[in-house]
């Protein structure tokens, strides 16, 4: 169990990246949903010891992660949102190098490990190729391979599916799910389906605050009967915006399909629809925006 208490961070330029963030994250996949700039990466980097918070605490099974970064790093597997590779080094050599840096010093063990990891992320056939020639998806797979070196107890993956094609994404998420059976895996994303498909638990954050945390199923259930749908002309959209909370808009067959959050049918022509996580997500964000506007 990873416990985050009252974590706050303000950058030197005045941006408040995290505001009193508290979360309980059990074993298994944990989805962290939020729009760009919500503070997901700040939170992930803080857990990954790459930046210190202004206040708050993080513990893993009772062990204080902030007190001794070096010890924390021994538990960690981290795939940052953006990372570079040495373009002139082969995947195999680089992974071997990283394994040493992670403390896998026994040569034979290391060789087996590198092979297993490369096979696991399906880069074995291209292990001799220079990282500079890898496509975005291959690079991402290389990133997960390095994060998995040495059986981490806490895996943090920051927006890992961006840039992957659907097939790669599936495969990647399966891999995560498999790991998530044993350890804490935090998956940050702004793609709702990633969470819906995989994560038994999740949190939504916006503007540095936790807007919701819990099981996706519960969250969806809580919106039961409150989401309404209607197909409208594009020109009418502004009027609807003024009158009700629009969760999402989508083009369908030349008209605009809107989802609206309301306790009762807002107007004639709206039909009820079964909520999904996306509705939950947008609902929370709209709520936060409205609260600030008020």
């Amino acid at each position, binding site marked *: 169990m990873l416990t985050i208490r009252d974590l706050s961070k303000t950058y030197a330029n005045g941006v408040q990246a995290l505001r009193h963030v508290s979360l309980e994250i059990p074993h298994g996949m944990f989805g962290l949903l939020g729009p760009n700039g919500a503070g997901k990466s700040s939170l992930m980097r803080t857990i990954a010891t*790459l930046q*210190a918070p202004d206040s708050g605490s993080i513990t893993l099974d009772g062990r204080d992660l902030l007190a001794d970064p070096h010890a924390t790093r021994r538990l960690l597997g981290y795939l*940052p949102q953006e990372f570079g*590779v*040495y373009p002139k080094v082969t995947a195999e050599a680089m992974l071997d190098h990283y394994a040493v840096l992670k403390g896998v*010093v026994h040569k034979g063990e290391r060789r087996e490990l590198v092979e297993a990891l490369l096979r696991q992320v*399906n880069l074995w056939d291209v292990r001799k190729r220079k990282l500079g*020639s890898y*496509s975005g998806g291959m690079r991402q797979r290389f990133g997960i391979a390095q994060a998995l070196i040495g059986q981490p107890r806490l895996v943090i993956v920051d927006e890992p599916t961006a840039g992957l094609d659907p097939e790669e994404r599936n495969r990647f998420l399966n891999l995560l799910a498999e790991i998530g059976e044993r350890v804490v895996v935090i998956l940050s994303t702004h793609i709702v389906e990633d969470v819906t498909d995989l994560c038994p638990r999740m949190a939504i954050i916006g503007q540095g605050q936790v807007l919701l945390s819990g099981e996706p199923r519960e969250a969806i259930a809580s919106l039961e009967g409150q989401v309404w749908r209607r197909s409208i002309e594009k020109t009418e959209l502004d009027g609807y915006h003024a009158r009700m909370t629009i969760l999402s808009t989508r083009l369908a067959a030349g008209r605009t399909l809107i989802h609206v959050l309301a306790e009762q049918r807002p107007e004639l022509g709206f039909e009820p629809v079964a909520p999904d996580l996306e509705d939950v997500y947008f609902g929370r964000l709209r709520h936060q925006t409205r609260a600030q506007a008020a």
Partner: protein
Amino acid sequence: MFFEILRFELRQQWRAPLAWIIAAAFAALAFALASSDVISIGGASGNVLRNAPLVIARLLASLTAPSMLLVTVFVAGAVLRDFEQRTAELMFSTPVSRGAYLGGRFAAGYLTALVVLLLCALAIALGNAMPWIDPLRLGPGEWRGYAWGLGVLVIPDMLFVAALLFALACATRSLLATYLGVIAFFVLHAVAGLLTGDVNHHTLAALLDPFGGRTLAIVTRYWSADESNHRLPVLEGLLLYNRLLWLAISAALWVLAFTLFRTDRDGQAPRAGKRGSVSPLSNVSATAPCPGVQRRDDVRSRWLQLQKMFVFDAVSVLRGVPFLVMLAFGLFNLIAVLAFSQHHDGTPSYPVTRLMLETLRGSYQWLLYIVITFYAGELVWRDRSQRSAEVSDAYPLADWIAPTAKLLTLVTVIVLFLLTGSVVGIGWQLAHDYTRLQLGLYASQLALDAITFVLLAVLAVFLQVVCNNKFLGYLLIILWFASQIGFGLLHWDHHLYDYASTSATPYSDMNGFGHFLTAALWFDLYWACLALALLVLTALLWVRGTGQDLRARLHEARRRMRAPSAIALSAALLGFAGVGGWIYYNTYVLNAYLPDNARLRMQADYEKRYATYRDLPQPRIAAVQAEVDIYPYARRLHIRGHYTLVNRHAAPISELHLSVDPAMRLSALDFAPHDTLREDTRLGYRIYRLTTPLAPGASMRLDFTLDYAPHGFRNDPGDDTFLVANGTFFNSSRFPHVGYQPAQQITDRNDRRTYGLSETVPRMPRLDDAQARANTYIANDADWIAFDTTVSTAPDQIALAPGHLQKSWIAHGRRYFHYAMDRPMLPFFAYLSARYAVRRDTWQGMPIEVYYTPAHAWNVARMIQSVKDSLAYYQANFAPYPFHQVRIAEFPDYANFAQSFASTIPYAESAGFIADLRDRSKLDDVYYATAHEMAHQWWAHQVIGANQQGSPMLSESLAQYSALMVMKHTYGASKMRQFLKYELDGYLAGRATEKIEEQPLAKVENQPYIHYQKGSLAFYALQDYVGENTLDRVLKKFLHDKAFQAPPYTNSAELMDYLDRGTGPTFRPLLDDLFWKITLYDNRITTARAQRLPDGRYRVTLQLHTGKVYVDGQGRETPAHPDLPITVGVFAAGNDGHDGKPLYLQKQVLPPGDSSLTVTVDAPPAQTGIDPYNVLIDRVSSDNRVPVSLP
């Protein structure tokens, strides 16, 4: 569109603080150059005004080349911006034409670069207006220099700079590669500059300088102060060609850039690696088992991690293009310098290891400063710039491993760089059939050099980590470099506060590193302690992760500070303090610390306090007897001296004044009863009142004991080089002198002002100052002296002093030599002691001995031959040799000269002993120098001039002349032209830097370019006109009449009388021109045509020009009438670089200005010449000879 792009780019550039920082830094440099006395670039010295138009133009010229390092970022940035910011695809999908885009960007880069230089011009004007500048050094403020400098140099220069950078950036698409291109360009530029060193390549060098600075220097090389103050070069000839050439090249570069420019993603860069198909995703199980591994975090794993990381970094650096490119440039530069620089007036040196190492230091290792600075930044930022730090920073890797691996990588780079250089050095030696490689010396010298570079590497890594900004880190390192220069200028030269600096370790083949090594190693240890502390701090402050401000980093550092780092840090700091204390004790307590200007301060104080005693009658030293004990290995010197002083004045003398070198301790002094009136040990001046005044004609004894026994070590060797383990050499200036010594006075006007002395520079007394004839120009306290000395030294060494060896014996484990002069000699003597090899020879019974280091035997035979030829010529034409033997002795290369004492001539190692004379077509400088020093045994040791203007001519010019004659008889007259060409250049260049007033030769006042170079030319011309025999006859008579004379001493006017009488009235105008006036000729042939006559002979028609000007001491010229007969010659074709034989050679009076002349010769003519042997002083000597055109 063009203007929109220009406007946008200019806005981008000048909105960034970098532009302003660079402009400000550069303008500050210009301001400093213009307003401070400590550096003089631009030639404002002596009588040249600080704001003379030419000085301003030169200052601007000197700024254009270095500006390139700074403006690269603007100009290349203008091209690369869209690629680096990844806006290229947006930009190039707009309908902007390539012309407008490139033109606009180029114009913006060029304008920015130009603005930086314009700011410099403003800063120079401002600097010149500062109140602390001596108004005497300023002329009227003039805009001409600025206009000329900007128009002729800066504007086209910056066009070239911009075009070059633009082309580089377009071709390489990388700022780094552009910078490398810039460095490559600088190396090429430096190599081209080496060509300037030799007068024979001036035309090429003038054309090859893209900035025109050297062209300007060459065009104005011979300008007098007056010309420099008022004139600017006309845009013609070399200067014009240079400007046109480089404008054309700039245009070509621009076209090249335009052609090379590509808008596509990969530009010109070769495709890196092939891109294969992406591997399939199916059919492999996603659930392949991941084997369990053990992760360790112990000493062994850390060691392995360090090793891996080091190899990873080192391989990337050593395989990287920048390193290889810089290495290649370094080697290129090294080889070029080796090929061009090891010459002294046309004579090369043997590639002895010491010289190889000096060249490595001077021409190769400096690149390492750039390499280290660059790679410290690259390595520290490597993971972050590759953006892989996000990944690896979260690894459980100890914090010290990464910085240590980076540092080890830098150390490896340093070692490999130095080793590569030494391999080239060794190759060079072997290629020149030189096999005494001294690998041990390579190793030790390079190890000493490496220490400095490693210390710099630590500092560079530390600064990069501490300031956590790559460019700030670079800037701070550059500041450190600047501080090195700044400290030097401020005379803050103690190594205790100058990071990584250490005491100098001059190496000599005779004495090795000598005692100098101790101090250097202590300073190295001192800074190594600090470096260790910096290293610990580096590890503590090493950045992991992102977004950390200073407070967070300090907090993190405190957290990381565990026992091992705390112990290492305190040990390092304790060591630093402890060693610092020890150094302080040695350099301040055991030895007085004298900054490099302390000597000047002492000289100034000496003059201020004691100049009042200048004309006080004092007894003269009539005899010197001394027992000198040299302890070379213990570095101790003990002198017991006995002077006989005589009152040669008409009145009794009641006060005795002694000047003693303050470095020597006067431990005992014994003479007639006296009172001590003053004992100034700091300045070495003592005044005693004799109880019984010394009566006229009476003499007295003066016994003294002098000791020199240095303890510990000093900040820098200073003059502590005369007493060393092998190769002790000191002269009579270490002995006490009687009375005030004017030779101590400062003769530089600026120095005099700085140290509060009157600005009237002390000069030699005028020729009509009869009183000055009481002294020779080398001593004011003695005439000819009796000399007898016993010198002892270590048993394995030979000690030398002037005089005939009476006896040599061994006693108390020491070796004694007793030397005595059986006739009076000049009061000028020296002592030497070393482990010498000796070669003996005789010439007509006269013993000739050469004392040398066994490794330097090459030229001993040559020296002996020169001594023999000299004895033959001088005895036949002047007078018998007055002493019983000729000795030449080598001394270590702490100085570089040869000096003639009576019968004994010490030579520095590189003054002849290591000259490489294997190529017989080169000038034989050893032979010449030996003949010159031998000539002093007549001209100085027999006839010496009074302390008046013109006397240096009697010694030096006549020695030059005598040596030229010996040389002429051995090598032939045609070889002399080669030699005289250097003398002509030396004279003309020397007069251009005259600080006070150029004198005619007969009134020369210790102006080496006159009494050596002009002396050679004038006497050579004289013998060419009057005949060698006539001249020798006059000299012989002069010598006969004046040798060993008592005061009043002879002077140059007397020699001129002899010459006048001896050569007759015909030559009176010639003597006037050569000796009493400063005369410059302008003789040239404009065209030479030949025609074959029916009888098989050739008629040659020459268009000639003759001209002559007289010049005053400040360089103002007055046209004169060329009334001398001038040689005109027609020559056959030469071969092998030898001049062809003359077919026609005759002196004739030519009409002034242009004229024509027709002569008929028997064989096919190839060349014609007016004054073809360059005996007359002509500023353009190359147009005296022109090839004949035969239809």
